[in-house]
């Protein structure tokens, strides 16, 4: 900016530049978030909408007492947060250490031949468990 410029004009220009940069950043952030996000489905939503051959993100908590091993596969049920509904998942691949019954999980699944859902290999993630969550109900 020219050295002889009125100081209040200088401040106005700086403020305009700063606000413009902030607006551009915010717009980019909002656009990226909405376009990069992937929809999550609860157990009840998945039962209603899942089509064979498509991959969905199943979100929920691991139903107490449902975890079993069958060969290399891990079998468990993921329960819906609001409804007394759960879906069976057969998963092979890396199992994160925090995985346990009652923990919140995300897993990519496809609808299998029977009523179960097939977890995509190495797609199972467990959200960092809050130490403070109350014991989840089992039904």
């Amino acid at each position, binding site marked *: 900016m020219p050295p002889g410029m009125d100081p209040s004009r200088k401040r106005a220009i700086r403020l305009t530049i700063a606000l413009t940069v902030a607006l551009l950043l915010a717009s980019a952030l909002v656009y990226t*978030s909405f376009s990069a996000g992937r929809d999550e489905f609860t157990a009840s939503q998945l039962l209603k909408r899942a089509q064979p051959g498509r991959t969905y993100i199943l979100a929920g908590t691991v139903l107490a007492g449902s975890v079993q091993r069958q060969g290399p596969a891990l079998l468990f049920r993921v329960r819906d947060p*609001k409804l007394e509904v759960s879906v069976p998942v057969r998963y092979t691949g890396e199992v*994160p250490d925090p995985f346990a019954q009652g923990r919140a999980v995300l897993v990519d699944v496809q609808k299998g031949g029977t009523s179960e859902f097939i977890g995509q290999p190495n797609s199972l993630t467990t*959200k960092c468990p809050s*130490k*403070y*969550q109350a014991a989840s109900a089992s039904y």
Partner: protein
Amino acid sequence: MAAVGRVLLILALATCVYGLGASLYGARAGGSAWVDSGRRAMYSVAGMAVIGFVILDIAFLTSNFSYNIVASGSSTTTPTFYRAAAIWATQQGSLLLWVMLLSLWSSLALFLTRRRVREIAPYAQAVLFVLCGFFTTLTVLFANPFATSSTPPSEGAGLDPLLRHTTMMIHPPMLYSGYTLLLVPFSFAVGALISGRLSAEWIQVTRRFALAAWLCLGIGILLGARWSYTELGWGGYWAWDPVENAALMPWLCATAYIHSIMIQEKRGMLKTWNASLILLTGTLAIVGTFLVRSGILSSIHAFVSDPTLNISFVALITVMTIGSISLVLWRRDGLRSEARLDSLLSREAVFLFQNLVLLALTAVIFWVTFFPLISEAVTGTEVSVGPPAFRPFVVPLALIVVLLSGIGPIIAWRRVTAAKLRRSFAFPTAVGVSTLVVLLFVPGVTRHLFAYLMFGLGAFVVASVVQEFSRGVRARQAMTSEHAPVALARLVRRNRRRYGGYIVHAGVAVALIGVAASTSFQHSRTATLKPGQSVREDGYVFRYVRATASASAQKISLGAILAVSKGGHHVTTVQTTYGLYPAEDPTQPIGRFFNGSDESRVGLDAGLTRDIWTVINPNVAPLQGLINKGDAVLTPALAQAERLPPAQQAKALNYLYGLRDIAIRELTQRFVSHPWSAQFLLIVSPLVTWLWLGAILAALGGLIALWPMPVRNRPRRPRRTSPRDAPSSPPAPVPERARELV
């Protein structure tokens, strides 16, 4: 004693109410006696909180399972250290820790300011009582740590195996100390705004608390990252998880604050900015606490959290936000700066840019962290966002922060001339550019542009810090003729804030070089191996030498020893284990030992240039048939034994449990005697150690900056042993800038 603890909490709450009233009455009616009484009330709250905490900790140490939280969070088999620390692994115990730390830091702040900022302190005191009272109310009404059961269990549930890690036990007190220390400058800012005393005095009296908060939060974040790297079995140290971001956001704002207050102290500028910033930082500390314990983001529908607790936190955050905005708007005329920014090429301008970038970082992290909730509110659908959503914004902003952290120490206040610019920037720029040029010849480095730039910028920052130390030492030597090490020590001792800050900058630069290298140039693979088999990764050969196994009543451990070689030469041997903790299912007397919680023990060989990291994920499916057979035999036998008369029951059960333990040991040993293939995650990661070393260096710099100056700052005279040592000619004149450095 539980009743004593409960009474103490109720009394503490009543004392908070009294203290709040006394402080406000003293402030309004001008009675310092009432304000002093309020301050002593805070000391009492701290004392009661400490006693309550000790009572609860004794209950944990003595495994007194009549306390509900001891039964749910500890056991007789939990090692003593973890038992003592398990108090804050529970909701109720952690809230009590909050109350204790907040009341202790508040007492310290009020004690240190008892003869200063007399118009501000009563209001600050009142705010601290409101905050203390809030957390005490939670423990009295909603999360009672002294709740007991009339039928206590004979054994507790034990501590989550994932939390049985030294760093994870120290991590919460560090974080809570950071959060509670931040509330001290927050409260004094509110006090300054209410009282209208808007000079820099409230900043001066609380600056050390802000710096201590920054240090504690940073250490807490570092400990969490270290736990993630060595315990969680995924090979990383930062996952952009909401609970991680919850601590990072106030830390970034605190970083901005401790820089921008220098401008207000020196030039009387940025008053509105500083007041707003510390109010935001304090509010984010409460938001972070809410995030971690509410469960709103680990489970979007919060169905596992206590809604009453959530509503209370939301109400407090709302009051803090609206109150902060209202106060700043009310006092905006008084917050006008006394000076103006003279030039964009000045330290003030650099600090301001740095503040803006740090706040932009905070805003990005806040938005993406809460995006699942935002998207649900806007579109009705939950959305999953992971690390890829953060990186496009965080990485470039981090590069800018590093650049500015190198420029800040070497650029002058107010205005800098072209000649000064050349003199100050020549060496660091040469080092940074040379680093980039040299790295051009290292294969593959330039493929990762951001990492490549970070290496150059990191070198620039370290060089600028080295330059400042060098100039300071030379200037001091010119004045005092001290030897270089002595001059260096005294230089730092007399200017702890400045040189401690420089060390922090260097440490952060080194840490970020480590982050850039380990994230961009990491090699990893998953391999399924049997003993004797090997696999190659990043030029290293990993050979599965042999299986290991052990079993006890608390844990089954299946592991492997791997030999790592490169170019035909043995590099290291690592051992990794997978721990299985028993579940509580009584219908599977043997199976429950293989179906409960698990945790990985990482096989780690850490070095200055690279880390070799491995975990095993053994498959217990080959044992399942034998486990099922054993359960089929033992389950009815145990049921039958429990129907026996008491005199025979104990003997029968002991015999059957003995058989069970033999079966478990035999089964476990089959992993060694008849080993089957196991899955391994193998990672070779460069410069991870630089992250930890850089963070330790930054923490050391923070401690130096925090350490109080000596009470008497005696002027130093040149060292002379005899008249013959007296200089024959007068010493060379010391430039003005050099005097400033020493």
